[in-house]
């Protein structure tokens, strides 16, 4: 398709007598006339313009000096993959020598993000394709050993490094292209082989795989986040609620809640007179997206922790050996059969549920508690629920205030003495 588009474009060029300055500016604006022309050329152009306007005085209006090399990618109005590839096509067609192709590739790499093509292997291949084939292949040992055409090789190494940084995996066609450009002893080839060795090893290493790219919708991110946090208990159930069905709720938003049957049971067994807390907001990252979540938790059960401490017998301690031959028989270890400690019962508290809401407000969290209560946890109505908010904003404000204070002290130390 791109080839077709490029052909269409080329046709247009031919029709216009091969001077692309006259192409009607569909995606290519007029300001980018100076497509990699030098400073002197620009100046002469400017002078021509002046003289054409007819003696308006050269000296009165002094134009700011133009940069020596203009960035052709900055002036494109319609920034898409098609226009990006068409730019490469223009550059390739412009002249036989493809002068400044290293600079062109660097400029193209820098502007990839604006065109939204930085994760596209096809575009990287098109960029490598700008390099002439066969010219940079070393013909003797010394050339091979001393990095033949170093600027060009470094340019492609940088391109490959950008791919590596962004996690774009090269393919075998790219290897063939690099072989054609730099020969089998080229440094870009070595980089490519390294990438092909290591990148597949790390690509799917994470035990919590994520879609690539991460969806933009906050609800989807919240679902992914809560699912991820709930992998600690396989019986966890993720449910998505709408708050508009809840009585007295102000916010109309969504709530993603995660809770397992075990947590439900723990909540049922929780003493009615002890409060549970809604804590948060805490942050969880999913690759480069982060989202706030809240937990419903209670203080740790001291009896349980105590019993766990008692069970632990130091097996290395030989000072108190219990021999079965004398006296009473060895007491059976306590709680050998009995309640097991759940993963949710931690030293720092018992976790009952996790949620993420669309607005992260107290009102939406209240709706969450009501929804939990009506969905299989009726005891929540009898237990006092307290908010324990960790406000990021106030903490930041205090930090800034402290800093301002210390700065003041530093700037005028005399104020200290007057106090």
């Amino acid at each position, binding site marked *: 398709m791109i080839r077709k588009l490029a052909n269409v474009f080329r046709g247009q060029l031919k029709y216009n007598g091969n001077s692309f300055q006259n192409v009607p500016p569909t995606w290519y604006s007029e300001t980018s006339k100076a497509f990699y022309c030098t400073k002197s050329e620009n100046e002469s152009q400017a002078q021509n313009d002046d003289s054409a306007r007819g003696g308006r005085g050269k000296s009165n209006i002094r134009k700011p000096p133009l940069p020596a090399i203009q960035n052709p990618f900055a002036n494109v109005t319609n920034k898409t993959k098609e226009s990006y590839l068409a730019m490469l096509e223009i550059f390739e067609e412009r002249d036989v020598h493809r002068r400044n192709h290293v600079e062109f590739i660097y400029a193209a790499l820098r502007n990839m993000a604006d065109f939204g093509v930085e994760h596209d292997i096809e575009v990287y291949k098109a960029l490598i394709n700008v390099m002439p084939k066969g010219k940079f292949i070393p013909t003797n040992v010394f050339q091979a050993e001393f990095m033949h055409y170093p600027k060009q090789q470094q340019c492609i190494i940088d391109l490959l490094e950008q791919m590596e940084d962004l996690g774009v995996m090269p393919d075998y066609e790219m290897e063939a292209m690099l072989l054609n450009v730099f020969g089998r002893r080229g440094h870009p080839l070595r980089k490519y082989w390294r990438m092909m060795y290591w990148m597949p090893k790390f690509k799917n290493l994470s035990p*919590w795989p994520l879609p690539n790219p991460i969806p933009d919708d906050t609800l989807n991110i919240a679902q992914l986040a809560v699912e991820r*946090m709930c992998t600690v208990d396989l019986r966890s159930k993720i449910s998505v609620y709408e708050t508009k069905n809840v009585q007295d709720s102000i916010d109309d938003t969504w709530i993603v809640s995660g809770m397992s049957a075990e947590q439900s049971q723990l909540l049922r067994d929780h003493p009615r007179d002890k409060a549970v807390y809604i804590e948060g907001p805490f*942050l*969880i*990252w999913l690759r480069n997206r982060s989202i706030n979540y809240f*937990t419903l938790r209670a203080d740790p059960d001291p009896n349980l922790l105590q019993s766990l401490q008692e069970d632990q017998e130091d097996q290395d301690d030989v000072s108190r050996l219990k021999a079965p031959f004398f006296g009473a028989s060895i007491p059976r270890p306590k709680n050998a059969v009995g309640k097991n400690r759940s993963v949710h019962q931690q030293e720092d508290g018992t*976790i009952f549920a996790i949620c993420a809401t669309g607005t992260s407000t107290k009102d939406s969290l209240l709706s969450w508690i009501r929804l939990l209560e009506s969905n299989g946890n009726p005891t929540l109505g009898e237990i006092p629920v307290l908010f324990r908010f960790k406000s990021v904003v106030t903490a930041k404000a205090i930090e800034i205030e402290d800093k301002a204070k210390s700065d003041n002290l530093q700037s005028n130390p005399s104020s200290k003495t007057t106090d």
Partner: protein
Amino acid sequence: MNVLRSYISRGTSGVLQIPEVIVPCFIHTTAIRKTFWEKEKKSGYTSNVTLPSRKDLIVEGFRELKKEIQLWKDEMKEKLDCDPILVYRPGETDVVFNFKNESAFDNWIVTTDADHREGKSTAKLEMSSGGAGLFHGNVNSEHVRDGIVKRTGYANIRTKRVRRSFKRESTYDWTQYNTLVMKIRGDGRSYLINLHTEGYFDIQWNDVYHYVLFTRGGPHWQLVKIPFSKFFLSSKGRIQDRQGPIRLDRVTHFGFSVGAKNNMDGPFQLEIEYIGLEFDPNHREEFAYEMYKTDKYIVAT
């Protein structure tokens, strides 16, 4: 020589007087690396700590002598006792770094890119409310585009160099174990576990074995077990072509890193309760990465 001198003088004066003329000069604004030889371990990233006066240093030295002699005494006692652990029972974790007590934090050093004015990241290692080590802060990939620094945005913690008495450098000996065990609570980011195996020669100064620490995020603690066979060698952040299993008797530092790569700027938080070692008899793997025979003069060039 004269030509060079004239170039230098022209180069310096030229900058002052005629800014538009670009003089081909031999003075470089950036450091040029002529060889791979390294003068000192930090490769120029030295800390500007001004030493106290010589007198203070002597006084401080005598003060430390007492502690060092005590250390030496303990060492000699252990040597004479000659009572090594011979059986490493499977499933038993020996804790190396415990964050339960406040004194454990003295052993760690926090660094960020802001230390050398190359970035704006902040980081701290302190005791959390739950009584564990909390490595937290903010990574920021924003930096001054000075043409030298390409990427920024990292925070790092590392233990101090393990040593014997009288400030003699030493190494950890973890040869009896094959698994790294950690109890952590992260924020969903992935962290880098760094096992430094600093060697004697300059090319070994930056040898670090890495592996990724994926954190689940959420309020639950996470028990991580990573076999040492998974760690791979890198130097100055580049994975090396010539790989090999880690020498566990040469470990000099242990650390974690976090980066702001690919728009991951923002706060981070890693809570560590302990870092321990375990011997797992079922894990037989020596090195997780296959090693191919390649053409001559391609690898490590």
